[in-house]
């Protein structure tokens, strides 16, 4: 309920910004004398460009699930241990931005690889604690999304180097998903020592739902190099939905056979991006101004 309320407040906020942005622009147009139109024209700009960078992800687990069910009541011992923002994925895409004075509306479709991992450890022993056997599973996931973010940007300063902040939301469409399971262990029960088993590599698209939605916010700087605007920014994405396909949690024979079942998961992501944008509107060829 609380989450729904946050969604609605956020939606209303975005719509309010858009409507006021639009109304303000139209109102000014009606009042503006012809002599000032060129100046006002230059306060608006369309930008188009490319951006790309590195993406670091982790997941926040919700309800926990496991193929194993302990008959000793030690439920927490079955919990997975999640790694933080570990393992870089790449992201690349386009940016289309409309700027009015210091505020911009930016659409940044991109292809994004998000990687996250967790591990499980299971141990068996006899009453003497000498005869032991343990198994360690390291599970790496690689999810590729076609992502459609929509952001409001605000230029803090109007210098040559312009710091800015941005916030918005995104909708991601799952393109591919793969999973790798590395299995190792220690076998003292057979008088042996450490061992490894061949990795399991499986397509895991069925384990995740198609959509990933969430909010994002970030900060960066832009710098005008001639007609081109070069930018560098860092963004944080807060996934709002459970990406695990609840229906298919146990349906992958290979993975569930190896004891794995996904928890409910929400994505978290930090990305560092470099981009360059070109202006799309000119008063005339001699009167171009990119800022």
């Amino acid at each position, binding site marked *: 309920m609380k989450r729904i309320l946050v*969604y609605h407040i956020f*939606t209303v906020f*975005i*719509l309010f910004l*858009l*409507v006021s*942005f*639009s109304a303000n*622009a*139209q109102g000014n147009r009606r009042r503006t004398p012809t002599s000032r139109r060129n100046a006002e024209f230059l306060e608006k700009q369309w930008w188009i460009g490319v951006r790309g960078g590195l993406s670091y992800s982790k997941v926040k687990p919700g309800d926990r699930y496991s*193929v*194993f*069910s*302990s*008959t*000793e009541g*030690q439920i927490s011992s079955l919990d997975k241990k999640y790694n933080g923002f570990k393992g870089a994925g790449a992201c690349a895409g386009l940016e289309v931005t*409309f700027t009015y004075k210091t505020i911009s*509306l930016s659409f940044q479709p991109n292809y994004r690889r998000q990687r996250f991992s967790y591990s499980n450890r*299971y*141990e*068996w*022993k*006899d*009453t003497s604690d000498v*005869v*032991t*056997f343990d*198994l360690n599973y390291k599970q790496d996931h690689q999810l590729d999304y076609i992502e*459609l973010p*929509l952001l409001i940007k605000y230029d803090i300063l109007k210098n040559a180097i312009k710091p800015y902040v941005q916030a918005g*939301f995104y*909708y991601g469409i799952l393109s591919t998903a793969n999973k790798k399971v590395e299995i190792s*262990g220690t076998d003292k*029960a057979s008088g042996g020592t450490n061992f490894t088993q061949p990795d*399991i590599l499986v397509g895991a698209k069925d384990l995740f*739902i*198609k*959509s990933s*939605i969430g909010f994002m916010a970030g900060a960066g700087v832009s710098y005008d190099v001639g007609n081109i605007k070069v930018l560098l920014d860092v963004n944080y994405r807060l996934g709002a*939905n*459970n990406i*695990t*396909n*609840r*229906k*298919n*949690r*146990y*349906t992958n*024979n*290979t993975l*569930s*056979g*190896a*004891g794995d*079942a996904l928890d409910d998961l929400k994505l978290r992501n930090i990305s560092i991006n470099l981009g360059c944008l070109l202006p799309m509107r000119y008063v005339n060829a001699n009167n171009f101004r990119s800022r």
Partner: protein
Amino acid sequence: MNRITVFLGALIIFFFTSCDVKKNKDVKPETFLKIYDHSDITSEYSPYDIQQTADEGFLILGGRKVAESPFKGVYVMKTDKDGNFVSEQNVSSDYVNPVNQLIKVGNQIFFFCMDRLSLEAKLMKVDDAGITIEVAGLGLLYPLYASLNGDNNSLTLLSYNRDDKQTVVSRISTNGAILNQKSFDIGFGDFDAEQAIIEHLSGQGKHLPFFCGQLNGNMYYFNAFYRYTLSLVFFDMLSTDKNPRVGLVQGYQDERVISSLVFKGNGFAISRFAYGENFFIPNVTLNYAPNAVSSSSDIPGNKMFELQPDANVVLKNCALNNGNALVYGSDTKSGQIALYFYDVNSGMLLGNKYLGSMNPYKLAGYTVANDKSLVVAGTTWIAGRFPRICIFKVSKEELEEAM
């Protein structure tokens, strides 16, 4: 600018109403695999059968190692409807050799086992919480198999009388009274049937496909040792003859044997094995008239190459979502549990499904749950070595896809 506003508004609405996000939130998981683990490296449980309880949870009947007997002790486990472990009961080691079937009679669940010292068959009752109590001692030895009769109020028990070397079939009430009984000599010959029975019960030898049931009215059947060999025998339970006349589908020792049977009203579905090869025969007419004799090895069928030699087969006529289907469950050579679905009338294969991977899996039993899913109990060996009870819940959607 208005166009942009409309576009963005539409995008926002799309964003918040993403169809699969909402579906995913609402979906009730209908499929699961659960492996019931214990950190004790020496713990060892074998499941025999599974039944759903009134609270939609599941009861699993199993065997456990007991120091005092070569036979397995009785183990009962309770799970919730999602397969999560709730409780377990290591029934007193005075009771051993639980017979494979958990039999639901109305809201009550029964099974048979054996007294550890006297070897007398016992009728046991389990409540929904998995608490087991003895209903009655039956004065019979070595229980082998039990089934529910058509009246849904009495049971048929197959047992072996070691003293008289007889296969015994009894009709038993749910309070443990023997209502009818017939006995049949196992015969004597080169083949030591008794040793095969004892090794089957202790788990030291070949698993033998004993079964029994009511055909219709007074006609009953059993698959057990009869005249030197493991044969399918039809007889009249109310016959007054000392040696009732039987319809016989003869096997050979325990090598060529019928391994499962379902009576369909107008015919039979069976499986058989012969010297390691397995055959499914989902539509066959058997002559069970008194004194009729035929041989199981003459019955042609579908040869199931992937199954283990002389495989354990659990065959049931199941009421699934799309109507009844014959479900053959068995074990593959590659360590998976295999389910085969056949049309009840035509005997045509509708589809199949394989369960388990990575570690070996072995079938114990299955039941159709209230939501028309199939819940399969089995054994898996974690890391290929620690035997643990597992259950698969195969949703009705998965069953529909498989068929």
